[in-house]
């Protein structure tokens, strides 16, 4: 990181892919390359960590530790493998560690569906549930109330479902990237995502019934 700058300008580095940057940093250890990577993921990775941890301050600490691990483990980065899932996997491990150290143990619910693949009939039922009611149970809430409900409900999801949902919906990662981060088959990613949506839908319906009563 403290080596002299190479011939690449900042603009030149900006043209490189994440994988090329990481390979250069692995091989040369140049500070400007590392800086480029950190800046490139500053917003995206922080947003993921903050949402996952639910604590902006802790998210910044984990963000810094994640890139420290990127530096320490740079020799393990394999050329030809995508950088983003590798970075997210490190960040997720760091986040889980941070939660444990903070006494907030991530838990895995036993009733979550984690099997590979997702059946068309189940997906059909889920879609029917989601589009079946005219306005949906959440449409009656004020916007601020609805957003608070979303935050609370997602926080109540089992750990793996919550992680998958955030990566897929809020971080816009592809299934194959999530599969690589979580070291599970793509089918299981879809299964977890559908399970998360189904649980949220159940929570919304249960909330409405409670309100009706």
């Amino acid at each position: 990181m403290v080596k002299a700058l190479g011939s690449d300008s900042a603009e030149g580095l900006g043209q490189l892919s994440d994988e090329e940057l990481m390979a250069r940093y692995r091989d040369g250890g140049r500070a400007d390359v590392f800086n480029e990577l950190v800046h490139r993921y500053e917003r995206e990775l922080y947003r993921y960590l903050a949402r996952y941890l639910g604590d902006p301050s802790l998210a910044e600490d984990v963000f810094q530790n994640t890139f420290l691990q990127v530096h320490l483990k740079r020799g393990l980065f394999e050329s030809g493998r995508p950088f983003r899932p590798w970075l997210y996997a490190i960040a997720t491990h760091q986040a889980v560690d941070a939660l444990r150290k903070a006494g907030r143990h991530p838990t895995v619910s036993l009733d979550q569906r984690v099997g590979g693949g997702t059946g068309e009939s189940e997906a059909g039922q889920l879609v029917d549930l989601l589009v079946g009611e005219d306005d949906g149970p959440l449409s009656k809430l004020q916007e601020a109330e609805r957003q608070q409900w979303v935050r609370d409900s997602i926080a109540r999801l089992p750990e793996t479902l919550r992680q998958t949902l955030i990566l897929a919906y809020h971080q816009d990662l592809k299934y194959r990237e999530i599969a690589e981060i979580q070291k599970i088959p793509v089918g299981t990613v879809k299964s977890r995502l559908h399970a998360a949506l189904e649980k949220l839908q159940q929570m919304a319906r249960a909330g409405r019934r409670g309100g009706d009563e």
Partner: protein
Amino acid sequence: MSNAMKSDEMIDYVLGQVDGADRERLERALREDGVRSVRVEKLRRSLYRMLDDGTPFEHSLGLAERTVLFVARNRRKARGFSDYVPVRVPFRWADFAVAAGIFLAGVLTLLPAVQRSRERMNQAGCVFNLQRLGNSFGQYATINQLLPYPPSSRADAPAGSFAAMMHDAGVLDDPTLLDCPCNGPCAHGGRELVGFDQLESIRRTDPARHSRMVSFDYAYNIGYRHAPQSLASPGYRGSWQMPILADQPDHVGAQIRPGNSPNHAGRGQNVLFGDGSVRWYYGRRISDADPDLYLNNAHQPRPGLHETDSVLVPSHAPFRGW
């Protein structure tokens, strides 16, 4: 769902998981199917309502720069053992109970094994003592052609006097051999060995000291009565059938109680034979001719009724018997 778009494809499409040619195909299908298009739009709205938390999560200014500095500061720090230890481990009674339970289970498992090991060690120590005394008896018999035995006029001397006689002959210098390690260390502290005449003198002047000097853990063969008024030393023929020394019997005063020696908690007794061997007996029977190690064939703690009727009495019992 029509062939053009399945339900899971619809979810994937709304979540932005479909790219390239597949996306084009789905968009074409939606343009052609108005009902499906409405359904997809409803799904999109439903997911938005259920998942959008409206929180932008903006990082503080300069996070990237601070991160670069943080890595520069910490990159050379080697990870120590403490880095692998959880930072905060709150005390929990459940952890304590588990640890205590494991410790207790370990102790309960090990304790009998340790006890058995100690018993085996002491048992081996007892055998070792008797074997060394057997060597001394062999040397004594080679010199004197008989085992230690007092003159007829001193038949009231305690059986334990055999040690003094062996000391006189120069074949016994270590008094610790006279203690069986199985029943704990000698209660009298360091035992002293003196010659037979000196022992008899102490008997008259200092009975308490004399009593301590002849109180051993082993019982000695007091020979047999070969005539109504005449005692005889146990014949030393190097016989594997003739007991010389054994763990002392359980006794109260002059009465020999039933059962095995208390030296080994009543489980049995080690017996030293004339050929120098030491054998373990679970009972007092030695042979048909000698049914009781500690009593003669008249069931008395007195010299045997014949040469093969061995009687081993506690060391403070007189040669003429109780």
